C-alpha cells in the first residue's frame, strides 16, 4: 500500500443475534486503504462483505454488536458522536449501493435530493447548489441534466438512477467512496459504462474507493489491491497483479476456476466448488473453507489458519497448505 493511510479497519468483529443463535458476520478483519487507492473486496453472498462496509459506515442494524477499531482520516469512527458521524457520512465518506433506490427517495425529485445534499454539507445558496447539481449530472453522463432535476427516480432507467446515486455520492468531494456491488443489478453494457465512470471520477478527484463485488472479473482491471472474503474473514489479500499472477489461497483459485471463461470451448465442464459455505451461526473449529477444499488435511479441520504474509509483506493468506505453483492452465 502506497501513500498515506486513509482508512484502517482493525480487528473488526460484527455479531448479529438471530433466532438460531449468534451470527458472526465479520470475523476479525484488518484492512487499510491509502488515499486515492482502490481496494476490491470480493466474496460470495453471506461472506460478510456488505456487513464489513456497513461497519465502516457505522450503518449496522441496531441489534448488531461491533468491536474493533475503524480509523478514518485520523478519527476513530466508533468513538465519534452520532451528530459528527452524520456530518462525515455524505461529506468525506460516501456510499453507492447495489440498488440505487436504496439511497434515492422515490417521492422527491432528482434536483431536490442533489441540492439538499449539497446544502446540508457545503452550505451553498440555491443558485450555486442548482448549478453544481447540473454540473454533477453532466459529469456522470446524464443527458439533458437541466431537465432531469425536475424528474423523479421512477422516470429514469436503472442505469440512469445509478448515475444519479453516484452524482449524489460524489457531490461533496468525498475522500472515500464505498461502492457496494454498484453494477450487479445492471446490464453488461451499462455495467462497463458505470465502472468507467467511477474510475474516471476517482482519478479526477483523487478519491479512494472500496469496490465490493462478487465478480473477480470486475476487480481485475480496476483495483490496486484485492481482499477475498469467505465466511466473515479475509482469506487472501494482495496487490491486484500479484493476486492474479499467484493465487495462494485455494478458495481464491477455486472461485476463479469456477467462472465460465469466454475463451473455453462450449460444453467444457466447469471446475465447480462442491458443497456450500458453512452456516454462519455454526462456526467451524478449523478453516471455514476446509470442508470444500481439495487440499485440506486434518490440521485444517482442527485449527484456524491466521492471515499471514508470504514472500512479500503485501501478499497475505490464511491457509496451512497454500498453492505453491500457479496452474496457468486454469486461467
Amino acid at each position, binding site marked *: 500500500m502506497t501513500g498515506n493511510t486513509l482508512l484502517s479497519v482493525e480487528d473488526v468483529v460484527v455479531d448479529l443475534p438471530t433466532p438460531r443463535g449468534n451470527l458472526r458476520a465479520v470475523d476479525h478483519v484488518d484492512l487499510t486503504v491509502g488515499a486515492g487507492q482502490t481496494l476490491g473486496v470480493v466474496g460470495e453472498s453471506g461472506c460478510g462483505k456488505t456487513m464489513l462496509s456497513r461497519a465502516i459506515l457505522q450503518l449496522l442494524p441496531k441489534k448488531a454488536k461491533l468491536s474493533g477499531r475503524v480509523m478514518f482520516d485520523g478519527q476513530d469512527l466508533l468513538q465519534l458522536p452520532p451528530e459528527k458521524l452524520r456530518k462525515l457520512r455524505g461529506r468525506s465518506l460516501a456510499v453507492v449501493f447495489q440498488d440505487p433506490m436504496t439511497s434515492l427517495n422515490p417521492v422527491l425529485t432528482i434536483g431536490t435530493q442533489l441540492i439538499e445534499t449539497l446544502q446540508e454539507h457545503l452550505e451553498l445558496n440555491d443558485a450555486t447548489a442548482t448549478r453544481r447539481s447540473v454540473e454533477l449530472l453532466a459529469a456522470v453522463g446524464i443527458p439533458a441534466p437541466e431537465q432531469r432535476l425536475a424528474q423523479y427516480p421512477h422516470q429514469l432507467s436503472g442505469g440512469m438512477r445509478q448515475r444519479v446515486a453516484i452524482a449524489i455520492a460524489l457531490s461533496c468531494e468525498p475522500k472515500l467512496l464505498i461502492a457496494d456491488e454498484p453494477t450487479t443489478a445492471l446490464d*453488461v453494457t451499462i455495467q462497463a459504462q458505470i465502472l468507467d465512470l467511477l474510475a474516471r471520477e476517482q482519478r479526477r478527484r483523487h478519491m479512494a474507493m472500496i469496490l465490493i463485488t462478487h465478480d473477480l472479473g470486475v476487480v481485475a482491471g480496476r483495483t490496486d489491491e484485492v481482499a477475498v472474503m469467505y465466511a466473515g474473514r479475509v482469506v487472501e489479500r494482495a496487490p491486484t497483479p500479484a493476486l492474479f499472477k499467484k493465487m495462494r489461497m485455494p478458495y481464491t483459485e477455486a472461485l476463479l476456476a469456477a467462472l465460465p*471463461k469466454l475463451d473455453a470451448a462450449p460444453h467444457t465442464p466447469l471446475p465447480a466448488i462442491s458443497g456450500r459455505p458453512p452456516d454462519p451461526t455454526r462456526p467451524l473449529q478449523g478453516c471455514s473453507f476446509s470442508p470444500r477444499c481439495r487440499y485440506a488435511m486434518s490440521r485444517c479441520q482442527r485449527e484456524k489458519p491466521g492471515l499471514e504474509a508470504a514472500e512479500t509483506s503485501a501478499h497475505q493468506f490464511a491457509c496451512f497448505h497454500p498453492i505453491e505453483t500457479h496452474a496457468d492452465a486454469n486461467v
Partner: protein
Amino acid sequence: MMLQSAPSISPDALLDVDNLVVEYPVGAKIVHAVSGVSLQIARGETLGLVGESGCGKSTLGRAVLQLRRPTAGRVLFDGHDLTTMQGDALRQMRRRVQLIFQDPIASLNPRRKIGDIVAEPLVIAGVKDPEKRERLVHEVLSAVGLDPTLVVGRLPHEFSGGQCQRICIARALILNPEFIVCDEPVSALDVSIRAQILNLLEEMKGRFGLTLLFIAHDLAVVKAVSDRVAVMYLGRLCEVGPSEQLFARPAHPYTALLIEAIPVPDPDVRPTETVPVGEPPSPIAPPSGCRFRTRCPRADQRCSDEMPELRAVAPGQFAACHHPLV
C-alpha cells in the same frame, strides 16, 4: 408484418419458430416485445439466447411454450403448431416441454413439501399410483444430486438457492420432457454454486437426451453450455451462429459490444474505455430500420431507412446488419 428471414439450419429441427410476434398493450400504447423472430433448434441441441434486460428474450421463451400467446407467427414443436392448440391437446403437448425459472426459491410453493412439489407434474399428468409416483420422485431427486430420503419431507425454506434450483430441475425432468426452456437458471446463484448447476444441466441434458433453449444475459455462461447462440436486441435477432465462431468473429456490432463489455478476470487486460453507447430505446417506440442504430458506431442513413434481414456472413452464421464486421 415485417419479416426477419429464417436461416434454415437443420431438417431435424425439434423446434421451429417462424416469424414470431408478441405485442401487448400498456395503456394506449403497444409494447413491441418480440418483432418477427425466427429460429430453429435441432434435436439434442442447446441454443443460447442472450440479450440485455427488456430485449424480449424471456417473452420469447414464454411465447414458445404458449405461456403467453403470441400475436402472430408459428411455433412448430416436432411438427405440431402449438399456437393453434387448445385445451387437452396443448396439455398433452406440455408434458414434453418444461420451463426452469431464474428465481428457484420463488418458483417453489413455500407451504408444500419437496416430495409433493416434485410429484405434482405426475399428478397433473394422471399418474394415479402413489408408489409409482414415489419411485419416480426418488429417482429424479437422486439424478439431480439430492438425497431423496433427506429431502422429500422438508419445505423449500430449508434449502439454499442452489439446492432449490436442483429441486426445480428435478420437477422439470420428472415427466421425461424432450425440450426445456431455461430462463436465466443461474443468474440468482453465487459463482461457486452456479458452476455446479451449469454442470448439472449439462449432465442432465446428456442423460435425458434433452434439447434446450438457454436464456441468459451472461455471455460466458451462455457460451459454456450452448452449441449455437442467438443474440437478441429490442425484440429482434441481431445474430445467430455456432458459439465458438460467434464469439471469435462477431459480425453484428451489438454482439461485438456485448463481448467487449465483459469484465475479464485478468489484471493485464486493462478494460477498454467503452464508447458512450447509451441505453436501449423503449420497446414502445423502437427506432425505424435497424433497432440498434441509435447506439451503433457504424450506423448511417441506410440503417434508419431499411430494416436489415438476417443474412449469411459465414457458414452457419447469420447477422442482421447492413455493415457487418465480417
